[in-house]
């Protein structure tokens, strides 16, 4: 039965009940009215009983007393409701009354005078009178009526009392019946109503109870409502919803477990805190590092709070301050190097931003291995530097001393040549080792650059001076064109500029057969340019692109590379050095067979902070028009070491 039908039934029942109650009330009212009817109309008495009694008993005969009494007794027998009867004559004297009967008399009592206004009234009016009297708490209809004989003569009057006890009893029973009926019906009505409403509300109550349990987290609950009404459908839909919800929650839980497993398996420490610095998640790696005491499967988040971690990191890093800074700035923070218990850590703090910042993720990366590796690498080069150079220095030093102090004893030209070869090879080897070390230092950013002010012309002059002998041996000119006006001092590392100059000029000499090398200067706003112009072989366009790269030489085929001439690092080192000084090195121009012009730019020492020099060299240098190289035969340039 559908809920709608149940409601309909209930409403029908209620309407029915109301109707019944109304009927009952009406019935009661009509019963109440009955008494009044009896009292007011009493057709029974006035139209039937009274004429009969008047006819039978109105004519009183003294001589027929006993007969009369029996008539009275008979009338009273026929009408048990009549409790009293008397006859009164016109002189207001009672001539007979029912109380006489009991005595068994044969004649009536002498007339007894009474003084009853109602009786006087009836004697006068000769009209019957009727009222209700109360005797001993019982009600009676008192009837006083004149007896007028057939000759229309008033003879006497009769008075009798008609007991209302029976009528009232009957009425009382009816009223009682109605009351009982009313009460019973009300009780039945209420019960039925309760039953029907129970039919409706019971499943709803049950559903509510189940919903509360589910809200409390117990998803195993189901609404056990098998009715086919709307509540039944609702329960079905509800159960379906619970099933789906359970699936979704299981899925979420599964995802959560997967995520947690992933986070726990990370080698990087992972901590998630909320806005109030409460730890929400902390993985195994983070516990191990920062919360060793709480690193057990039984440990809960309470065993590892931010306070615990802070105690652990006491004096190392103020993590909380960084986290708060992260919250305030809404930006990720990296603490590059935290040394903690002989380990190095890198800490990243990233805010979790939705509408506002709701928390932060802290990643703790153990960079100890990387640091150890880095140090090992540095140490390797440092040790290699020393360990390789020391024996090489001993070889070169000894051959050099042999050549100087024992030249007279070495008469055999081949022995002399062999010693010379050992000497030259050791010199080259030292140069190679030095190139390697320079390269690694430059690449690792370990090369230190001085910030000194100096005159580039002097550096150029010294370079030229060093190569004078070599140049003259090859019959090449080495010229320095002094600048027209004194140049501003430059800012940089004088020795390293010299190293670059030596490399470039050395290369130029190496690859120039006729003509020579000219060094010139040009002054610009923020830098000074040194041009090294040779009349050598020139470099092809393809080779120019590769020239400043690592291990590149101006030859395309690695097999044809002139390995006796160097490591292929010279120009690469020169480029790194010049960049490190905020300067630049490049090929200004080169023409095969005519020669090459290299330029070295170096920032001038101005009042600006030195840090701006890098920007200057990257942003401001524009290749100027190249002064035409001396019209002399050119030769190709090849990278080579600095010695």
């Amino acid at each position, binding site marked *: 039965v559908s809920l709608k039908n149940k409601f309909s039934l209930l409403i029908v029942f209620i309407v029915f009940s109301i109707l019944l109650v109304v009927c009952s009330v009406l019935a009661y009212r009509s019963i109440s009215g009955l008494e009044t009817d009896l009292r007011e109309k009493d057709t029974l008495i006035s139209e039937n009983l009274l004429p009969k009694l008047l006819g039978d008993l109105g004519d009183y005969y003294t001589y027929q007393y006993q007969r009369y009494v029996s008539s009275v007794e008979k009338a009273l027998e026929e009408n048990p409701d009549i409790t009293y009867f008397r006859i009164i004559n016109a002189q207001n004297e009672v001539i007979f009354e029912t109380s006489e009967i009991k005595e068994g008399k044969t004649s009536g009592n002498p007339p007894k005078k009474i003084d009853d206004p109602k009786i006087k009234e009836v004697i006068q009016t000769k009209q019957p009178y009727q009222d209700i009297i109360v005797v001993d708490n019982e009600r009676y209809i008192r009837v006083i009526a004149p007896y007028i004989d057939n000759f229309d003569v008033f003879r006497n009057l009769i008075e009798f009392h008609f007991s209302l006890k029976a009528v009232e009893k009957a009425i009382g029973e009816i009223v009682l019946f109605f009351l009982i009926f009313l009460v019973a019906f009300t009780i039945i009505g209420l019960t039925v109503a309760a039953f029907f409403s129970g039919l409706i509300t019971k499943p709803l109550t049950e559903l509510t109870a189940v919903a509360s349990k589910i809200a409390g987290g117990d998803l195993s609950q189901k609404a056990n409502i098998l009715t086919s009404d709307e509540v039944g459908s609702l329960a079905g839909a509800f159960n379906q919803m619970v099933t789906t919800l359970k699936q979704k929650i299981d899925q979420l839980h599964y995802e959560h477990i997967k995520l947690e497993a992933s986070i726990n398996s990370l080698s990087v420490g992972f901590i998630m805190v909320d806005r109030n610095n409460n730890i929400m998640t902390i993985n195994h790696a983070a516990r191990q590092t920062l919360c060793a005491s709480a690193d057990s499967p039984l440990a809960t988040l309470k065993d590892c709070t931010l306070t615990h971690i802070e105690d652990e990191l006491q004096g190392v890093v103020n993590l909380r301050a960084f986290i708060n800074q992260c919250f305030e700035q809404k930006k990720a923070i990296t603490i590059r190097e935290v040394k903690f218990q002989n380990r190095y850590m890198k800490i990243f703090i990233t805010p979790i931003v939705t509408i506002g910042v709701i928390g932060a993720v802290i990643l703790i990366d153990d960079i100890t291995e990387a640091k150890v590796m880095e140090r090992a690498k540095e140490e390797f080069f440092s040790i290699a*530097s020393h360990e390789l150079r*020391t*024996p090489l*220095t001993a070889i070169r*030093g000894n051959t050099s001393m042999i050549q100087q*102090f024992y030249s007279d004893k070495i008469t055999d030209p081949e022995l002399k040549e062999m010693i010379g070869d050992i000497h030259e090879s050791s010199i080259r080897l030292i140069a190679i080792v*030095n190139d390697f070390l320079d390269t690694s230092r430059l690449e690792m950013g370990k090369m230190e650059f001085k910030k000194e002010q100096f005159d580039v012309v002097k550096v150029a002059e010294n370079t030229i001076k060093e190569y004078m002998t070599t140049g003259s041996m090859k019959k090449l000119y080495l010229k320095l064109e002094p600048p027209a006006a004194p140049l501003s001092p430059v800012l940089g590392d004088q020795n390293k500029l010299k190293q670059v100059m030596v490399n470039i000029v050395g290369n130029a000499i190496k690859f120039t057969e006729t003509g020579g090398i000219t060094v010139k200067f040009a002054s610009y706003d923020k830098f000074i340019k040194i041009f090294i112009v040779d009349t050598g072989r020139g470099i092809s366009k393809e080779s120019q692109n590769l020239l400043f790269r690592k291990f590149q030489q101006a030859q395309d085929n690695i097999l044809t590379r002139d390995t006796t001439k160097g490591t292929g690092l010279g120009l690469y080192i020169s480029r790194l050095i010049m960049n490190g000084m905020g300067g630049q090195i490049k090929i200004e121009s080169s023409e095969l067979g005519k020669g090459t012009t290299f330029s070295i730019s170096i920032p001038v020492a101005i009042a600006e902070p030195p840090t701006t020099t890098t920007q200057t060299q990257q942003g401001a240098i524009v290749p100027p028009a190249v002064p035409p190289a001396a019209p002399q035969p050119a030769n190709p340039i090849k990278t080579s070491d600095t010695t």
Partner: protein
Amino acid sequence: MKKVLLVEDDEYMLRMYQKLFTYGGFAVTAATDGVEGLKKAKEIKPDLIILDVMMPKMNGLELLAKIKKDKTIKHIPTVMLTNLSMEKEIDDALTHGASLYIIKNEHEPQKVFEMVKDLV
């Protein structure tokens, strides 16, 4: 005859510089680590001390610092002769009172001798 103290842990290197200074007319005393070097410096009070940097027991920079703190020998010209070419070591040595800092592989022995002989 002028006395020179050579503190050098590499035996080939030591022998080479021993010869160099002997040919140059010096009386050469050798030590192969910093501790021995300090001991001999105090004993013989040489006219010149030549120090390597990387050495066992006590390195050259520590030895230099000790020499320059010792009243009896602090006046002796002390030269660092090493293959370490980092600016830091050079600066350290010069601020601690080294007269010269020579990188071995950059110079032939005769040149080294030319550089230091005038200190005496």
